[in-house]
C-alpha cells in the first residue's frame, strides 16, 4: 500500500468532538454520510478539501475526549488512511487500531507544513517531506499492530484468522 499524499495540518488537543460532532454521530448511521461532516467544528469545508490518500498531521494529544469509535472511522472513510501526531489520547489510539486507521507518533510534526506532499516509509520509520525535501522520523509501528491495521482493523483480522491473537509477533 502506497502512503503518499498531501498534508492537512491541525494543532494540539483535537478532540473527538472536533473530528465528528455529537449532533451527527448519534443520528447519522451511515459511516460514509457521517464522514462528510468531518472536522466541521474547526473547518466546515474540510471534507471538500480532502483527496483520497491525504494525511492529517497534528500536535499533541490528538483524539482526546469521548470514546466514540466513529471519530477514527470518519477519518478513514473520508479517504485519509493515516494520522501523524506528537501524541494520541488513549481511547482514540485503541479505537484507531481496531477500525484500521494508521497512527504514527513523531515529536517533529511542527516541521511539516500544511499542504506539503509527504510519503511514508514504514520499514525505515521515516516520513519523506517531498515539498521540503526533508526526512522526519517517527516511532516504529509494532508489526502486529501494522498488520491488524492493514487488514482493515480488528474485526477483519478476527474474521480472517478465526480468532483474536494477542500481541505475539511470532504468530503474525
Amino acid at each position, binding site marked *: 500500500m502506497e502512503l503518499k499524499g498531501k498534508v492537512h495540518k491541525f494543532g494540539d*488537543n483535537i478532540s473527538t468532538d472536533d473530528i465528528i460532532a455529537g449532533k451527527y454521530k448519534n443520528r447519522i448511521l451511515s459511516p460514509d454520510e457521517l464522514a462528510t461532516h468531518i472536522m466541521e467544528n474547526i473547518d466546515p469545508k474540510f471534507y471538500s478539501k480532502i483527496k483520497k490518500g491525504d494525511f492529517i498531521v497534528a500536535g499533541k494529544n490528538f483524539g482526546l475526549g469521548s470514546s466514540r469509535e466513529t471519530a477514527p472511522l470518519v477519518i478513514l472513510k473520508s479517504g485519509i488512511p493515516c494520522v501523524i501526531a506528537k501524541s494520541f489520547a488513549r481511547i482514540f489510539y485503541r479505537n484507531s487500531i481496531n477500525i484500521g486507521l494508521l497512527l504514527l507518533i513523531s515529536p517533529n510534526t511542527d516541521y511539516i507544513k500544511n499542504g506539503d506532499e509527504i510519503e511514508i516509509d514504514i520499514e525505515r520509520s521515516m516520513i519523506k517531506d517531498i515539498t521540503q525535501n526533508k526526512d522526519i522520523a517517527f516511532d516504529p509501528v509494532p508489526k502486529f499492530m501494522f498488520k491488524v491495521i492493514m487488514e482493515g482493523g480488528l474485526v477483519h483480522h478476527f474474521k480472517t484468522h478465526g480468532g483474536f491473537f494477542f500481541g505475539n509477533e511470532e504468530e503474525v
Partner: protein
Amino acid sequence: MGKTISEKILSNKSGTDAKAGQIVLAKIDRAMSHDGNRPIPLDIWKDLGGKKIFDPKNYILIIDHSAPSPVESISNVHKKMRQYAKQLNLKLFDVGEGVCHQIMVEKGLALPGELIIGSDSHTCTYGALNLFATGMGSTDIAMAIAEGKQWFRVPETIRIILNGELPKGVFSKDLILYLVGKLGADGANYMALEFSGEGLKSIDMEERFTITNMAVEMGAKVGIMEPDEIMIKWVKERTKKIFELIYPDPDAKYLETVIVDLSKLSPYISSPHQVENALPIEEVLGTHIDQGFIGSCTNGRLADLRIAAKILSENNVYPNFRLIIIPASKEILLNAEKEGLIKTFLNAGALISVPGCGPCAGNHMGIPADGERVISTSNRNFKGRMGNRNAEVFLASPATVAATAIKGKITDPREFLKD
C-alpha cells in the same frame, strides 16, 4: 516492590504480577454500553459471529444519550437495544432511568476491587468506589463481551493527596477543574490517578464521583480512590455482595505525587473551548451568559441539586436566561421531589427535564443559538460540544451555575452562601 491500586487490581484480574508498563489480558467483572455508540457494540459482536455474552447479567445496557429519542434513526437504535436485551437476557435501563454512570454506581453495579469497562469515556467515574473502570470504543467492548476478557496496558500512577477541607462555596468540581488546569488535557495520558489523603473525609460520596468522572479530561485511564468508611457505607447500602478493598502498598511506585491543600481553593471555571482552560472565577466574573445546565454524570446528583436549590430558594432566574436542571437518575429525581427541591427550581423559573445526559453532548435538547454562551456543570466544553460551533461553553460547579442563573452573568456562588 509495592503496588499501586491499579497494579493490584490488574494483577488480581490477570493472574499475573502486573507492573506499570506491562500489557496484561484480564478478566472483566462487568461491561456497560449506552445508546450513543455507532455502531453499538452488540452489532459488532453479532458481525463477529457472536453466540453468547460472557455473562449476560454483567453486560448492562442503558439508554441515556438521546432519551427520549429526537429522531427516527436514534429511535431505531433504541428499539434494537431493547430487542438485543430481550433476546440475550441482558439488563436494560430504558429512557428516563438516568445517566449510565449514575445508574452503575447507584444500583450496586460497580463495587470495590472490580474491573469494569464501558463504551463511554467517563466510565472512569466508578473509580471513586475503589475499582478499576475505564472507557473503550465499540469494537473493544464487542470483543470483551464475547470473551469476558480484554487487554490492558498497566498504567503508571500519579498520586493526588488531598489535605485540608474545601472552604464554603467551593466544591469538588472546583477541585477537579483546578487539577485539569494544573496537569493539562494530556497530563495523565495513559496513566492512573490515585486519590487519597485526609481531605477526602470532607468530601461525600456524591461529590467524589465528580472528581473521578473528570480523570479522563487529563487523559487518565482511571481515577481511583483509596477506600474509607464513607465509601464502605455507601456501597453497603447498595449491595449485599461481599467485596474486597484495595489499598496501595506503602512502597508503591508513583510517577509523581501532587499535594493539594483544599482550604486554599476557590471557585474555578473552565473557559471555552478546552477543559484545561481552568481559571479562578475572578478572571471571568461578569461574563454574560444565556443558558445554564445543572446535571450530567459529573454533577447531577442530590448534593448538587441541594446546593443549587439553596441558592435559588429566595431568588429568581434572570429574565430570558434558560436554566435547565436534570437529575442524573430517577432515584435522584424522586428524592429531590421529596425534599421539595423540584418545587424550588420551578418556582425560581428553572426547568426540569427527564433523567439522562440532557444537553451535555448536543444530542437532542438545549442547543444554544449562534453567539450564545452556556455555563454547564458537565465535563466538556469543546467547540460545538453542545450542538452549535458558534456558541461557547463554560464549565463550573452547580453552585456557580445557580448563582450565574440569578444574575445572568458569571457570579461567585459565595455571594449567596454567606451564612
